[in-house]
């Protein structure tokens, strides 16, 4: 079949329009859709000016870090405190060491023995200490009473040495009475 020149021109003119229509309706359509979706999303979001509470969060993180450090410090101090506290099985050994220390310092121990924890008149704040230590996981201390004959200087030296003893021996009560011969009757209650 032969086409006239007019028909050929019409076809020649129509082909670009067909291509153009294909471009607009088929090829361009998905891209237009993508653009519209992205623009709509941006319009919904609006300009991003609030990037969140960065400084506040950083300050909070610093506080958390300080909290962790403080927590570790407290735990370490607690362990140290509890380490100084005699375990029940170590008490006999501590009593022996205290007795020996007193003897070395010239304090003559005449009697010693276990007493009720609350029997000695001590600072009430120490009751709080026992509660705190119990809360930290430590065991309640035992109270040990020493009756001795000594001099002022011997006793002062003994108490000074007691402070340096590498065991828990806390003087909670001290009573002294001077005898007619000048010696002192001393009653010591220690938490061990």
């Amino acid at each position, binding site marked *: 079949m032969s086409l006239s020149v007019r028909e050929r021109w019409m076809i020649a003119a129509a082909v670009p329009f067909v291509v*153009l229509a294909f*471009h607009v309706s088929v090829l361009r359509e998905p891209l237009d859709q993508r653009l519209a979706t992205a623009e709509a999303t941006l319009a919904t979001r609006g300009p991003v000016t609030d990037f969140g509470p960065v400084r506040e969060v950083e300050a909070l993180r610093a506080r958390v870090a300080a909290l962790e450090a403080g927590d570790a410090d407290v735990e370490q101090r607690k362990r140290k405190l509890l380490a100084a506290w005699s375990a029940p099985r170590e008490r006999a050994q501590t009593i022996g060491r205290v007795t020996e220390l007193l003897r070395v310092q010239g304090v003559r121990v005449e009697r010693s023995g276990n007493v009720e924890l609350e029997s000695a008149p001590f600072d009430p704040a120490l009751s709080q200490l026992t509660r705190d230590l119990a809360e930290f996981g430590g065991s309640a201390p035992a109270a040990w009473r020493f009756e001795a004959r000594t001099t002022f200087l011997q006793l002062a030296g003994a108490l000074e040495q007691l402070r340096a003893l590498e065991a828990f021996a806390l003087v909670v009560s001290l009573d002294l009475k*001077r005898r007619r011969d000048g010696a002192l009757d001393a009653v010591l209650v220690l938490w061990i």
Partner: protein
Amino acid sequence: MSRPATTILFLSTARLARVDVASDGRVLASSVRARDEDSLRASVQVLLQAGGKPGKRTRIVAETLWTQVLSLPNASVDGLGAEELGRALAYELEPSSGLPAADAAVGHVALAQTDGALRHVWATQVSLGERDELARLVVSHGSRLDWLAHPAGLLAPEPGPRIEVWSNATLCDEPARGVQVIAAAAGRRTWEREVAAWLLRAPQAPVQLRASAELAELLASDTRVTRDPSLESEETLVAALANLAAAQDSPRFPRIEAARRARLSFGPALFGLAATAMIVGLSVWDLRTLERDARDLEAQVARVEAAAAKAQGLRREQRELSTALAQREPDLAARRSRIERAETLLAAQSERSSRLLEALGAHANPEIVLLELATQPGGATRIAGLAARAPAIEAFATALAPDMTTLGLLCEPASVQRRTGVDSGEAREFSLVVRPVTTAELAQRTSPR
């Protein structure tokens, strides 16, 4: 056998003829047959397939082409080139041929005769589509279409007054007056009138008539007209066609060149290709631009959404941290407070007794004799003794007070009693109470004045 230089195809309404001619004018092959096919293309196809390969160029003489002599004002054709004149003639021919001017290929030749301000142009016309189709057909048989022409005036054996009757055109020619082509179907009343008019103006000389016997009867009243049946002979027709095939001189009849048709046929295709290529190029550019824009925009969306998600995460973290801190900080403070209190108590208590004795020893003097030291309920310590005189007690208490303060103790005023007895003299019994500082007293001390 060598290949013919020219093949000429003759297509009348009744007969088909093919003549192959060598370059020296020799007839190499010829054939004449009755026409069975109506369409020009089919008939040409029959002729091309009938013999061997056609010559290098093929010329087609077809009776079905439209041919006509037009008289145009000199003013309208002066200065026109051949191509422009052809287009002008196409418009002039459109009413009579019915072929749209834009779809017409026109061959034309100016006739020698003039008529005052008119110029006479003999034109032959075919549709561009038919011409191109024939050209492609010829090319498909290994030849090239040279031209197309109407047979009117082409096959005359000798010059002289003559009338050639073809199906849609009648050529009337006499050397003095030139060519006239009557574009009317033979045998009609119009045709008969115009032929008679021409004969009236024709000189008194014999007029050769090439027409069928029936048509010749219509003109038999004019004694000058003699029917010439020579072309009905195959030999005469072949000889005439061979002469036409070998003719090299400038044409004395209108012929439609094929070369121009080919060039024109490329126009729409080239335009279509160029325009399509341009559209495709623009489409690619547009798609790439859109794709890039979409990618950029989507990246921006992703950044915005990431920022929003990060901000949301930060806000969530802020809430979680705030909650955790609100719970843990007071707890830590309480634990730290208990630890510090325990540490302080332990430290204070562990040194209290030894420091007390140390202070008592440090501030002892010959006027003071300590008799008793007793721990009392509440942690206070009562210090009892004898003083040689009253001021010594005051001095002793005053000296003791700073040391007690450093131990967190408070030295309360001494109670003094005169010693009863014969040998007691100025001696005084006294007692001091050293007790822990209460929390209220501690707060009072540290508060700003």
